[in-house]
């Protein structure tokens, strides 16, 4: 019997959060592969917000990615010493790419990112702060393909 997924709430942290699985197509240098890889990366980010588990995210994320660093620092801080985060789940309602490869071998993938607002819960169960719902964002992932897998190089925001 599979354990039942239960999202975090004010009474406790999330339970049995499914670990994202990289689909086979995400290992191919195709348009579908680039889209599947970008989708997977956000699933991993979402998983990290829910669980505080960062190892998978950090393997896939370049240290030069500043917004990634900012998020991982907050996740680490709020998933330690008995604290936890509620919310933070990320959905990507639209993922698309022109699948145009530049001279440096980079592709760009545009992603609509929706995140459930975070609540920051202290070890005693009191809620320290709850974020407001932010508008969905447009993010741009810079990725390349090498050695049978996609690699993330940078994440930026689409501002117009």
């Amino acid at each position: 019997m599979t354990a039942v997924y239960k999202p975090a709430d004010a009474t406790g942290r999330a339970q049995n959060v499914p670990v994202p699985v990289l689909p086979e197509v995400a290992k191919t240098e195709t348009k579908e592969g680039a889209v599947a890889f970008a989708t997977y990366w956000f699933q991993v980010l979402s998983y990290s917000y829910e669980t505080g588990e960062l190892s998978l995210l950090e393997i896939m994320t370049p240290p030069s990615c500043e917004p990634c660093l900012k998020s991982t620092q907050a996740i680490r801080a709020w998933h330690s010493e008995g604290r936890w985060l509620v919310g933070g789940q990320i959905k990507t309602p639209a993922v698309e790419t022109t699948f145009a490869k530049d001279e440096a071998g980079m592709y760009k993938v545009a992603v609509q990112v929706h995140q459930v607002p975070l609540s920051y819960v202290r070890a005693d169960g009191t809620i320290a702060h709850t974020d407001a719902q932010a508008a969905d964002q447009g993010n741009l992932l810079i990725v390349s393909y090498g050695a049978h897998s996609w690699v993330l190089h940078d994440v930026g925001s689409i501002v117009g």
Partner: protein
Amino acid sequence: MTLFVSPAQGADSQDPEFGGAWKPDTLQVGGWIWDGVANDFVRQAPGATNLDPNLYNPELQCHLGGGEFDSVCLGDFLDCRNGPDGKDGYPVVWYSKPRGVPSAVWARHSGPTCLYDEKPVDVLARIAAQIQQQFESLPINAGAVVAQPSPNTLRGAETNFYADASEQQFDVTMLGQKVHVVATPVQYTWNYGDGTVFGPQPSMGGPLPQDRWGEKTRTSHAYADTGDFQVVLTSSFQGTYSVNNGPPLPIPGQGQFSAPPAPISVWRSITRNYADDCNQNPQGQGCPGVASPR
């Protein structure tokens, strides 16, 4: 650029920082914009004005489409009777989507808020069409001009000019809707009155302590000739507008506003050296009662 979000009230000093939500900074240098000609995303040019990254759309509250309404939702229907012109309005819920992702779907943004028109969507389009003109006709204060030194300065010396323009908010009524406008100064053009124009550029300058008057600053000017000049500051403002407390929407163009001319007199200074003081030589130049030479 980093934005620091101040902690909420009641925050414990033991708490780690908040603000952990996923957010590639929209203020970062070189966000991406879609270039339709290149058919590619390109880095935004440095110093380019930031557009609102979102598109917005209002939907009637509780509307399920095709004339169907959610009956449970209607129990919480926002009361929009008796608007600014005494007209009844319609409650709308706002949706947004990031403009840079062509296939993005609408996601609930905010609301419900009221729109006061028989065709709420049309009235928004009409407000959008008029907002630029409305913006340019607002009594926006371009900022007072301050000169150091003033009202007199010396020929050839660096005279420091600065302005004190600030964000301004206005409430106006357009087509029977309450429209709230926030105007933020973004660029400044200095016309020093002697034929020199500096700008538009992003610095409004700043005050210098008196012991540093005469230093060159980003907005200082040295007059080559003596005389009386009128200094005119023109400030460019960027704005957002919000209809009946809806989401703030960007006003597409900037508005130009000029401050009242500030007069300045440019004098010359002449140094003469004298062997005597006025006790020894009461008729000497510069002594009391002695006409100054031209």
